[in-house]
């Protein structure tokens, strides 16, 4: 899978490229719109990550050209959300998804995976993590064979963490997914729900599955942490 990253901020570009390479993607970096356009015309990309504020040919203009050249390639917009470029405009110009700076790298990874439609995003009706079993159809959760009763929100939180076991989800991502954007900034609600979820899913068992990564977020994985 080959990804083109058009980003003029060298450090952001390096960071994103390094992270994506660690996920075994091939990443090309273009530092401005013209370089980006040249690369789009030279190679075939599976995904283009595009910063909107670029020197020379602007991001929005490049996006329109890309769309004329190849209507199918997925494009993920990185935006500092300045007043002129609203969400709606971006989608109208042909973006498939967008991310607002500053973003958590984990979130970028999730979106990249979703756009490439690959990776361990589980599409099965049943997700298994160690001895935990989540049935997405009946919305039932079992651990060690024993049924665990969860409230709808607790279930939604657990199911979201289970979409990519081992991946760390930030509180902001969880809030936006399980609640909605109005709860933005109200990340303490995540901590409360995680505590309740732990009481039901982890406390009765010796092996803990819900992990806290300080400063980053939560993940669902076999316990490695102390």
């Amino acid at each position, binding site marked *: 899978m080959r990804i083109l990253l058009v980003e003029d*901020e060298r*450090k*952001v570009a390096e*960071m*994103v490229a*390094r*992270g994506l390479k660690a996920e075994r993607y091939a990443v090309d970096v273009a530092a401005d719109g013209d370089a980006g356009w040249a690369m789009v015309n030279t190679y075939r990309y599976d995904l283009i990550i595009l910063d909107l504020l670029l020197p020379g040919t602007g991001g929005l203009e490049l996006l329109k050209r890309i769309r004329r050249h190849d209507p199918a390639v997925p494009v993920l917009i990185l935006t*500092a*959300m*300045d*007043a002129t470029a*609203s969400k*709606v405009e971006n989608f109208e110009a042909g973006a498939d998804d967008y991310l607002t*700076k*500053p*973003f*958590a*790298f*984990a979130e970028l990874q999730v979106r990249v995976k979703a756009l490439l439609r690959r990776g361990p995003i589980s599409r099965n009706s049943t997700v298994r993590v160690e001895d935990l079993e989540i049935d997405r159809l009946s919305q039932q959760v079992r651990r060690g064979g024993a049924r665990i009763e969860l409230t*709808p*929100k607790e279930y*939604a939180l657990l199911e979201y963490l289970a979409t990519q076991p081992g991946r*760390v989800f930030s509180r902001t991502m969880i809030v936006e997914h*399980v*609640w*909605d*954007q*109005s*709860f*933005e*900034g*109200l990340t*303490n*609600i995540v901590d*409360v*729900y995680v*505590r*309740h979820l732990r009481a039901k899913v982890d406390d009765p068992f010796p092996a803990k599955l819900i992990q806290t*990564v*300080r*400063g*980053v977020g939560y993940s669902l994985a076999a316990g*490695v942490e*102390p």
Partner: protein
Amino acid sequence: MRTGSIRFRLTAWYAGLLTAVVLALAAILFLHLKNYLEGTLAETQLRRARQISDTLIARVGATGDAYVGNEIASLYAPEKSDRFIRVTRPDGQVIYRSGPPNNQAFDPTAVPSASPETPWESRRKQPMAGGAALLIAAVRAPAGGGGTYLIEVGTSAAPVEAMFRHLLFVLALGLPLVVALATAGGYALVRHALRPVDEIAGKAEQITQHNLGERLPVPRTGDELERLSSALNHMIIRLDAAFQNSKRFVADASHELRTPLTILCGELEDLAQERKLPADHRERLGSLLEEVQRLAKIVERLFALSRLDAGEAQSEWIPFDLARLASVTAEQMALLAEDRRIGLTCEAASPVPVEGDRSRLKQVVVNLLDNAIKYTPDGGAVRLTVKPVGARASLEVTDTGVGLSAGDLAHVFERFFRADKTRSRHPDGAGLGLAIVKSICNAHGGEIQAESTLGKGSCFRVLLPLVDDQPHSSMPQSDSAP
């Protein structure tokens, strides 16, 4: 009418001065006229007396006293002309006295005799019991025998006095009328002249930091008011520029901070998950990351505020039911309250139809509830009430929390404001939550009010314009909890 207003004071001064001037004028007129008329009347009597002295008394030695009396009666007929004539001999004997006048204005016999020291010519005003005074002129006439006859001719002052009474009556009636008319006219004139001031003041009161683009009306009169209003307008233009500058600064700054924050956040996240690092290092990196996220949150909120200031909240304007939004949000946040054993109750009878950006208004409910829960001690109570009040929808969040002092309450919607130490115990926000709530309310044509008693609790009330009731089916119902 406010007694302190220029309008009132000008009119009062004007009316006072006018009354004084008119009264003085009337008094001078009255006294002069009275002196003049009485003088003229007395002069006429004096001429008569001289006539009698020259024609009759000069020859009294030859004609005798009786002849004088008859001559006076036939020549002057004093009774018919309502006159009083009396002639007294040097020895004090009255040789002639006219009879009662036809108009019965006085009784001739009741007129006291003149004093013996009367000079050659004199006049006096003789008050009479039960009637008008008599104006009497007296002349001493030398007679042949060496003595002097005293001739007194008088007439009643009644016609003059009646005239003055009439004049007084007219003045007493006319003066207040003139003053009242002049005052009313003056008041209207002053009001007319000052009306532009009212308009300027009314407009100036409406101008806040949110509509600094508006200007005061400038009366094209070339006078002081035109100068005043254009000077005020120039001040508003300078204020507007200052506000725009500070807003642009906040918007630019929060924008520029995004890229470095992205780098910080990404690199730190990467490191914090690096399993080769010792656990305590990862812990410290996590702590750093938390601070970076807090910074990012502040930048995010500042940016949201500058967008709201710029009036960009109206992108997704739809009608919806505020009561339903409130009850769904309360349900979603119930656990947050439950966790602290706080009773969260919601009284919201649907529908309470309002119009606006639904997610922004949900943010209002979320922020208010979050605040209420945060500042209420364990075991307290938070109540959310939504109901129509008049033409407005009222959303009220009441808590039994720590409350705010009156001094803090006045600043609670200001950016970066933090009440006492109790609030800074929560490092979560940056003192921007309520500022955002207020901005959202303003952007929706509503307002927010706050009441609080220190130690007892607070009440925040959002008032939004109600819209015409929509059929239930047209209301978006997407907000059910998953």
